C-alpha cells in the first residue's frame, strides 16, 4: 500500500515538473534561462525517479 502511494506521489510530482518545464520553456526567450531551469528540473526529476532522500 505504501509502495503504491509513493508511486502515485512520484508520478504526480513528475507531472508537476513536466508542467513546469512547459511553463518555463515558453516563459522567456533567453536560452540560458531555459537551459538552467531545465537542468534544475532534470536534477529534481532524477531525484524523484532514482534519488536517495
Amino acid at each position, binding site marked *: 500500500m505504501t509502495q503504491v502511494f509513493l508511486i502515485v506521489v512520484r508520478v504526480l510530482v513528475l507531472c508537476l*515538473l513536466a508542467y*513546469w518545464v512547459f*511553463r*518555463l520553456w*515558453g*516563459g*522567456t*526567450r*533567453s*536560452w*540560458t*534561462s531555459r537551459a*538552467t*531551469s531545465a*537542468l*534544475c*528540473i532534470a*536534477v*529534481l526529476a*532524477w*531525484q524523484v525517479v532514482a*534519488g536517495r532522500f
Partner: protein
Amino acid sequence: MKGFATLLWLEYRRSRVWAAALLGSLAFWAWGLEQVTYAMPEEQLGIRAGFLCAAAITGLVALAFMIGRFRSETRQGQYQILLLTPPSGYFHILARFTFALTIGLAYAVAIAGLLWWATGRAGLHLTSLDTAQLLLVCPLYGVGIVMAPLLAWTLLLMVLSSAYRISGTAWIPGTVMVAATPFVLRFLGERLGDVLYRLPGWRLFTGLDAALARIGIERSSEATHAGIVLPQEPLWGMLALATVMLVLAGRIWQEVEA
C-alpha cells in the same frame, strides 16, 4: 574598464547602507564577546567561538540579501534602466559580485581578528605566523569555499527569476533552483570527498600544539601532523562552481537585455 568602475561606484551607492550596517554590526558582536565573563577561560573561548559562528552566518545571510535585491530594483524601475546601459551583463554581474565579496572579505577578516582576540583572552597566544594565517588565510579560504559560491548562487537565482518576470512565472525557476540546490551540493560534496587530499594540503597553525600545551590542553594522540592541514580541492571546486554560476548569470543578463 571605465564602465566597470562606474558600475562599482553605482553598487557602492546602492549598497553602502547595507555594507556600513554589516560592518557596524561587528561592534555589537565585539560587545557581546566582552560580556562573556562567567565561565572558565577555555569555556569562554568556546562560547565566544559560538558567538563568532553566529556572526559569520548573520553576515552571510545579510550579504546574500544585499546582493539579491533585484525585486525592489525592478519595482523602482532601476533594473530596467540598468538593462539598457552600455556595459555588458557580465560587467553588471561582476561589479555586484566584486563589491559584495570585498565587503564579505573585510567582514571575515574582522571576525578572524575577534577570534584572535578571544584566543588571547583564553591564554592561547599564537605565534606571528599562526596569527597571520588566522587573519588572512582562514578568511580567504572561508570566503572561497562558502561566501563566493553563495553570492554567485544568489545572483544567478535572482537573474534567472528576473528573466521570467514579464511572463509572470518568476516563482517557478526560483522554486526549482532552490529545491535542486541541496541535491547538486550533495553530489558535488561526494565528488569532492572522493578527490580530497589528492593535491598537497596547506598546513596551518604549526605552533598551535605548543600553544595548547601551554594552557594544559593536549591534542589527540591520533593527530599525526603538527597543526591543521587544509585541503585544496574544496576551494578550487567551489571557486569553479562560483565562476560557472557568474558566467550563467551574466549570459542571462545579456539575453534578457537583448
